[in-house]
């Protein structure tokens, strides 16, 4: 205890040096914590945005085989799915029923291709809150059965204005060409740069275009209460549906979840006679599988951040070693005095170690505080609708750090500082008292 007090007093006594060393540690910890917080928040934000965009965390898709052997994506018999979903009970917050089509929008001599998602807006009211409206209002979309929400870029390219009618050409679920008239009720901020841009239609209007009954759909999305249970509940749902209907084996899907395959252009797939099935075959996937690519990116970013952090630590360590070598030379007579007064070698060594620990610990705490303040400040900035909206939560950057990783990083930096001072501290402890007292530095 006395050694700790002596070390603490030494740190305070040499304030300038302590501030310089501690400042370097604080800077390194600030950068590392900020990057970690950014990547953690990024994955959370994208997960939420993807879940909002796709209508949930778990996705159930159904397909049938037509009389001519073509695979048709539609869920007509909803009983199987509803009974299976009922098993999950209150773990499911909401259900989203959706259809989708690769449509050609035609207006005033111009045409643009746009992926359209038909949503049951009575089940997905939160969707409208998550969209960044550039023009129009959610209420207009709610009021018109043939309403369309289109990315601003598409609206501009077509020369459309909100409230105008546009022709939509698409193929039905059976592969026939059909056209319908829709009303543009809003322009939203798209995310074309990240491949997630599409328009929204009311499911009733889109089903009519796709030659589907109003109560039919192509994808059922489940929005869960607890995101930690995504994988386990996916397995449960898969097993329940598998009891009464054919399913695509987990891990053997040829394509990713809906929004990954949505952007493929293709016609009906012909199923070989020996592989055909009766009724509806179901495929169950979840958002984690869809975000595998992004998770890899975030892991890479975290790895890069860790490497940067370690580089900073090494630089700090070199600084600490050099500084304490200087400290040892300057305080040689002090060391001699302490040794002459009966302080053991271990005590001398431990004084320096505790000094390094206090400098590193306080520097890391300061760095953490500044990082937290920076995170709060940056998260208050609203960037509005822009090309990076998909990575923002309602226009702002979201940060997320976990206490366990923060404590680990803090202990790591303390350990590295202690390790860096170990050699000069041991050398100082080995000084002979008489020689130390004679030193004239």
């Amino acid at each position: 205890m006395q050694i700790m007090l002596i070390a603490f007093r030494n740190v305070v006594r040499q304030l300038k040096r302590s501030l310089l060393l501690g400042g370097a540690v604080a800077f390194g910890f600030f950068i590392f914590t900020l990057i970690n917080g950014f990547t953690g928040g990024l994955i959370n934000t994208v997960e939420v945005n993807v879940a909002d965009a796709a209508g949930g965390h778990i996705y159930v898709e159904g397909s049938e085989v037509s009389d001519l052997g073509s695979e048709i994506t539609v869920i007509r018999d909803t009983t199987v799915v509803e009974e299976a979903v009922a098993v999950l009970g209150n773990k499911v917050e909401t259900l989203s029923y959706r259809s989708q089509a690769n449509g050609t929008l035609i207006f005033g001599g111009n045409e643009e291709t746009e992926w359209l998602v038909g949503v049951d807006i009575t089940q997905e009211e939160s969707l409208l809150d998550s969209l960044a409206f550039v023009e129009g209002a959610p209420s207009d979309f709610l009021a018109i059965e043939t309403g369309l929400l289109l990315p601003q870029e598409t609206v501009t390219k077509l020369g459309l204005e909100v409230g105008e009618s546009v022709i939509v050409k698409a193929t039905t679920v059976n592969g026939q060409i059909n056209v319908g008239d829709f009303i543009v009720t809003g322009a939203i901020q798209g995310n074309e740069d990240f491949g997630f841009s599409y328009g929204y239609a009311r499911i009733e209007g889109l089903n009519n275009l796709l030659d589907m009954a109003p109560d039919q759909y192509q994808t059922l999305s489940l929005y869960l209460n607890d995101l930690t249970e995504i994988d386990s509940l996916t397995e449960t749902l898969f097993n329940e549906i598998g009891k009464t209907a054919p399913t695509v084996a987990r891990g053997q899907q040829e394509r990713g979840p809906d929004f990954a395959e949505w952007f493929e252009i293709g016609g009906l797939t012909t199923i070989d006679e020996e592989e055909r099935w009766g009724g509806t075959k179901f495929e169950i996937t979840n958002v984690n599988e869809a975000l595998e690519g992004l998770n890899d990116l975030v892991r890479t970013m975290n790895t890069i951040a860790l490497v940067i952090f370690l580089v900073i630590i090494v630089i700090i360590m070199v600084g600490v070693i050099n500084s304490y070598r200087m400290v040892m030379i300057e305080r040689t007579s002090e060391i001699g005095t302490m040794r002459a007064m009966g302080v053991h070698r271990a005590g001398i060594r431990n004084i320096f170690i505790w000094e390094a620990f206090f400098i590193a610990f306080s520097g890391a705490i300061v760095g953490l505080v500044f990082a937290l303040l920076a995170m709060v400040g940056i998260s208050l900035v609203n960037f509005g609708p822009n090309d990076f909206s998909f990575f923002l939560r309602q226009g702002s950057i979201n940060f997320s750090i976990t206490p366990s990783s923060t404590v680990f990083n803090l202990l790591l930096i303390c350990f590295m500082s202690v390790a860096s001072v170990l050699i000069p501290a041991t050398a100082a402890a080995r000084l002979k008292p008489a020689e130390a007292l004679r030193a004239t530095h």
Partner: protein
Amino acid sequence: MTRLQLINRVRPLKKETPLLPKIRLNFAFTAIIITGLLVLIPLVYAQTPDFEELLVEIDNRSNFTGDFSATFTLESKDPDEGTETNQVRFFRRDDEDKFLLLILKPETQLGQGYLNIEDGLWFYDPESRQFTYTSLSESFEGSDANNDDFGASNLAPDYDVALATEDTLGNFDVWILELEAINDEVTYPFLTIWVTREQGLVLKSEEYSLTKRLLRTSFYPSYAKVGESFIADRMIFVDALLEGKMTEVNITEITTAEIPNNVFTKAYVERVNR
């Protein structure tokens, strides 16, 4: 009242009245009419074709029993984007419902191909060296021609004749047939075709959506006789939804020489691009 008077009251005497000659005359007239109809109706019916059979004839006349190759030149006009020209080498085998389109022009698309085989229609990109599944109902290279315009004619198995009328189109006497698809998977659920009465060739076609909205008008103003079959060597597709947008297809270098079997394989398409 005498017995005779009573009988006459119950059963009036048949008397020759002025009305009777009229009845006999009407009866004769009616008999003549009925006889005439019985003679004429079969004659008239004999001149009205079986339209379902006509569809079969149209298919037979348009399809080839052997192989068919040609060069197709497509000129697509778009009011905004101007004129774009594609040239493709086309191989077709109707007996097996296969075809291969290899793009020759423009240079940027040289080597791209569309291969229709048993498991469907595939698009090949030589840059990525990948085959992508596509659809016969998709437009060919953004033009007004669809991929299935290059395949065999399948009017008879896919459509019923809902209505048939007579008319003329230019100098030709034609049947106007309104067709309805009999399955859900044909590209156009409703068609109206103008077929020459003499040769059974389609001169014009209007293609409608499921909601009976006109999507496209196709003109076949010129045919070439190839063996026993006829091929429209000039086709014009006019987009009904986008004013001014149209595609003209001209077919040249027609040959019915046998095509090696390996041409209709993915391996061949890849090899051509090496």
